[in-house]
């Protein structure tokens, strides 16, 4: 049962990772691309936190009756990664707003057409 649960977490990680990357590459809408990017980054949180959890383990606090602990470090690392992800998304959206102001559209092909690149 433990193995199944561990594999479940890994399976979800891989699905999110590939899904996110696919959306980034396949969509021409700048906001949809950012959504894909966020999904892609989210898969990494699971990649770290999933294996850090030990079934039946508690928070690493010394107390009587508990001697199995989950690894706290991945959680701390992912806290940082979440902050980075939020900052990236915010900046991406801000740039998208500016693009909309400058071009009047957020579709990649229309923007390239307006600049005469396509």
């Amino acid at each position, binding site marked *: 049962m433990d193995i199944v649960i561990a594999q479940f977490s890994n399976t979800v990680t891989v699905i999110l990772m590939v899904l996110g990357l696919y959306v980034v590459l396949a969509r021409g809408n700048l906001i949809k691309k950012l959504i894909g990017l966020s999904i892609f980054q989210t898969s990494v949180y699971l*990649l770290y936190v999933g294996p850090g959890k030990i079934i039946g383990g508690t928070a690493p606090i010394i107390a009587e009756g508990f001697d199995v602990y989950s690894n706290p470090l991945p959680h701390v690392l992912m806290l940082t990664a979440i902050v980075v992800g939020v900052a990236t998304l915010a900046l991406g959206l801000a740039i998208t707003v500016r693009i909309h102001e400058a071009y009047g559209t957020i579709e990649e092909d229309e923007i390239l057409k307006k600049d005469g690149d396509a």
Partner: protein
Amino acid sequence: MTLQHLPALQVVVPLLAAPLCALLRRPTLAWAWATLVSWAALVIAALILTQVLTTGPISYWIGNWQPPWGIEYRIDTISAFMLVLVTGIGAVVMPYARVSLAAELPADRLPWYYTMYLLCLAGLLGMTVTGDAFNVFVFMEIASLSSYVLIAMGPSRRALMAAYQYLILGTIGATFYIIGVGFLYLMTGTLNIADLAERLPLVENQRPIIVGLAFIAVGLSLKFALFPLHFWLPGAYAYAPSAAAAFMAATATKVAVYLLLRFFFTVFGEAYPLPDMAIPVIWIGLSVAGMILASVMAIYQDDVKRMLALSSVAQIGYITLGIGLDSEVGLTGSVVHLFNHGITKGALFLLVGGIALTTGTVTIASLSGIARRMPLTMAGIVIAGMSLIGIPGTAGFVSKWYLILGAIEEGWWWLAAVIVASSLLAVVYMGRILEAAYLRPAPPGQEAREMPLSMLIPAWILVIGCVWFGLDTDLTADIAGRAAHALLGRAP
């Protein structure tokens, strides 16, 4: 006392200076502050380099927590060398930036530009000094996020799309890196780079380690625009403000290459020597493809900044070629080319930025007859262009010489021929610029004048550097040789 804390100060000074800079609402004040901090960073880097060269690698424990539990800043020869390159370029570009940016940006955005520049500097320096694989990611994102903003500030609206594309690809690159580090962490339980190197042999030949290495290599390659992962680079450098383009072209990609060296040689070097993993074949293949194809693409560009950016992709090929050679001579070539190409491309972007100031966009057509109006600028482009091509007596020659020696050492004469052929392609695209500037008549009514001295002097400092480091190779090649020696794991 203070000397002992130099590694921390190297990062903390620009990092704390950045928010202060945002509070100084006056453009001139913000500029003066950012310039002061850049020069202070250069002094710190120089002190660190002398310390490393005399007493060996420095290990600094953040908050006095013992590694591998705490974060360790670890500075050896190559990282000290990179610190000097990054801070040196920053210190030279800042005096240039004031006039150049005032012409390109509205006044109320200038303090934000300097804030972002300081953050970018702090991020790049942090990536270089830290000895912790996850800490690298944090600094990488600080540097990247601020550089997206720097690019988005470019004067044309195309800068916005360029910044957006760089944001998408840069974030994918950084996320690939962090996935790779995640695999290594799962298998070894440590994030400290020195500790990783020790523990990897214990989990030798397990698939997650190989997968982790692959993710790290691809992620970093996206960051330094290894051909064919370079699509973000030409737009980003072409449409960014001139000062930002010069700073990033000379430093950002170089620091990513440095990280790759770190992982290939320091972390994996002992457990997984490169030749065992067929990496040299892939690496040399991509490098050669980049050197030739990106140079050919550069020839067909009309926008001079795009041309220089594509030439950067080709030059990155030279650097990765030395990594693929996996010999001390080849690696020396790589490390010295990191430095030499940094100053050469920095000089070219500064000089072209000066032309942009007077003519607006810089296309081959707009360069017609410009040599008569801006003789000093064009003379600088000639010399830096010679260094880009690799003419003897310039910095570019020194690095190509080592790479050719490395190729011949392996008995690969064809590779030496490819290096020369790629240099000839550089002659063609630099030749297009020079032909337009020197031989074509100037269009009537053109009012181009020499750029102000505050821009010309910094640009010429780098131009003189191109010649200086071509004639006096003691400093660069000697340090690069020691760095290569240490990376390959033979006692320094």
